């Protein structure tokens, strides 16, 4: 059992939790993730580590209520326990070989990006950041990130904060305007990472994206998280989650993400009050 020691709601349906998990914190690195389970009949879901403290023994996660499990997780509060919390999983991000990096975070994708920005900043890398979201409410961790980057740009779909439009607009503007980056790191919805990667391919800037596919064990055993990268099948859990954005087959990844959409709909209906919680 893993105790929740802090919980905050960052935006409607987006929550931050600090979880007591000393063993995970002990070896966590930026870019890695955990797998959690909320209750006995619960599903195992992967969530990226947003921050950690080795000495205090905690790990933070930031998640959006998108399905049944994240909904159940959101119901937990300070002092409650998460049943299972395993990690850190995946490879740590390779962050120590760049001199000037542009980090692009979309929605809750900003959460896993934050420890990477922090790590690079502390190592003396110059980091510029673009954050994008639906509206200003969904721009996460802007204050924290501002403290550890050179310049922060913001884009919102509705124009409620920063540029009205997409992160790719800002990316294009910066690079066309003469800014030079030796690497781009993009984490966010698949459609955003796809658009960013298409653009950076044109600009010939190497780009890393972080994949978050459906998984069961997170240790390489199930193969459910397969991603096609450069024509080869890779496992996001053990080979990733970071991959070369120019080589990832995003269309396939988006399709695989939809695998259980029908089941999610059904389960939603039968979990409604009065339906007896049973389909069959």
């Amino acid at each position, binding site marked *: 059992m893993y105790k929740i020691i802090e919980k905050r709601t960052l935006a409607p349906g987006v929550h931050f939790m600090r979880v007591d998990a000393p*063993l*995970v914190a*002990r*070896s966590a690195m930026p870019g890695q993730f955990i797998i959690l*389970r909320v209750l006995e*009949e*619960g*599903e*195992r879901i992967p969530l990226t580590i947003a921050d950690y403290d080795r000495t205090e023994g905690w790990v933070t996660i930031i998640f959006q209520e998108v399905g*049944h*499990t994240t909904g159940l997780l959101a119901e937990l509060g300070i002092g409650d326990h998460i*049943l*299972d*919390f*395993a*990690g*850190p*999983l995946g490879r740590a991000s390779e962050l120590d070989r760049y001199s000037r990096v542009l980090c692009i975070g979309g929605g809750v994708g900003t959460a896993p990006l934050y420890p990477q920005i922090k790590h690079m900043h502390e190592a003396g890398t110059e980091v510029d950041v673009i954050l994008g979201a639906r509206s200003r409410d969904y721009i996460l961790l802007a204050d924290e990130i501002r403290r550890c980057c050179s310049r922060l740009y913001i884009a919102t779909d509705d124009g409620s904060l920063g540029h009205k439009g997409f992160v790719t607009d800002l990316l294009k503007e910066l690079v066309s305007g003469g800014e030079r980056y030796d690497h781009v790191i993009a984490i966010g919805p698949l459609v955003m990472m796809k658009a960013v990667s298409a653009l950076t391919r044109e600009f010939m800037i190497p780009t890393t994206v972080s994949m978050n596919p459906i998984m*069961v*064990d*997170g*240790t*390489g*055993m*199930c*193969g*459910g998280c*397969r991603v*096609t990268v450069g024509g080869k*099948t890779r*496992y996001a859990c*053990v080979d990733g989650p970071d991959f070369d954005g120019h080589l990832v087959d995003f269309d*396939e990844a988006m*399709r*695989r993400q*939809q*695998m*259980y959409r029908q*089941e*999610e709909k*059904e*389960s939603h209906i*039968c*979990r409604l009050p009065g339906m007896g*919680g*049973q*389909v069959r």
Partner: protein
Amino acid sequence: MSVTYAKTPMRVQDPAVRRNNFDEVALGYTLDEAMAEAGRCLQCKKPMCVAGCPVNVQIPAFIKALTKGEFESAYNIINETNNLPSICGRVCPQEEQCEKQCILSKKGEGIAIGRLERFVGDGFLDNEEPANRALPSNGQKVAVVGSGPAGLTAAADLAKFGYEVTVFEAFHEPGGVLIYGIPEFRLPKALVKKEISKLKALGVRFLTNVIIGKTLTVDDLLEDGYSAVFIGSGAGLPRFLDIPGENLNGVYSANEYLTRINLMKAYDFPHSHTPVKHGRKVAVIGGGNVAMDAARCALRLGAEEVHIIYRRSMEEMPARAEEVKHAREEGIIFDILTNPIEILGQDGWVKGLRCVKMELGEPDESGRRKPVEIKGSEFGTDFDMVIIAIGTSPNPLITASTPDLKTTRFGGIMVDEATGATSKEGVYAGGDAVTGAATVIQAMGAGKRAALAIHRKLSEKACINFAVNLNAAK
């Protein structure tokens, strides 16, 4: 005494009924049936069956106790060398091991040793007090990585020798393949849980959600005060065929499919929150026990038609004869000498399979006749789900994080077969992590050998330390 050459049959659930449920297929012997079967044993002076058992269960001795109605003594005899009789009685390939060696099998059917082992084991499942009590703690800690058959066996033996044993399990529940892989209808999970609770009663500590190689490394364990580490981390990454269409929606590895169903109880969705696709017409590729398990699960989840697609013939099929028989009775269709070359898709979902017919040629390095493609025999069949059950390759998590652990060219951990000792001091390994996919009992045998080797090594060290201290005191 007249000799009976036929096994006492074991009752099974009617195939027409059981194909719709996850309840156990084989129902076990009644007391009378067990006594009748035990009575067939000739009590050979030089029992070949014992030599055929990877953990050398004293088979004639336990059967003799059984015939005398001394059940506890029968259990204790088995338990001396086998900590998991109820499990082995169900999933061991006895027909390839002990029963194959039985003298009766020369003229008829060998003794149903597995069924008797199951009968005896089941009678003591609820005994919380372990039959063999552990020695008092010797104060030394040993770490066991993985809680499948190899790890559980090593843990039990080490605990009995007096070590403080901690088992590290990556999943949220201990049991390894016994829990995530082998389905309920072949090995009820309640039974595995009881066997594990017996180990807990022996003082073995289980730490779930700890992934060795990630959460902690093998070196962390050695630094944290564990005198030895046994790695029984099991099968690794599922292998795929490397044919077009394998990443279509509706294609599963058998590992994923079975884990969703067995460990995550997806058959009970949405009460259990993990979903699994329900195929209408399902192709399972492969001919091992895992393929049979996956096929029979698909049937139980309501598939109208399930095909096993295997590139060799029935004779070469690695699955246990009993599993093939049960699958056939339930209506699984066997497409033998058939090799898939492409998974066909439509709108991103599985639509069918393109295969070629094969014929058997010369024997290959495995000694089995090599399947050769028949030119121009390509054909397509409609399927809406494909499950790939062609084995696994070793998991790199532990070897990648332990640089001084030598591996074989297949990526398995290199060990001395007799002791399980690896290239790294104090580190032992066994089971699928070493051999690649093998059987439960082989993994248990490896766990046993390693436990003994660890005990010898650590006692030797303790003796030397004692002598050194004694000299120093003088």
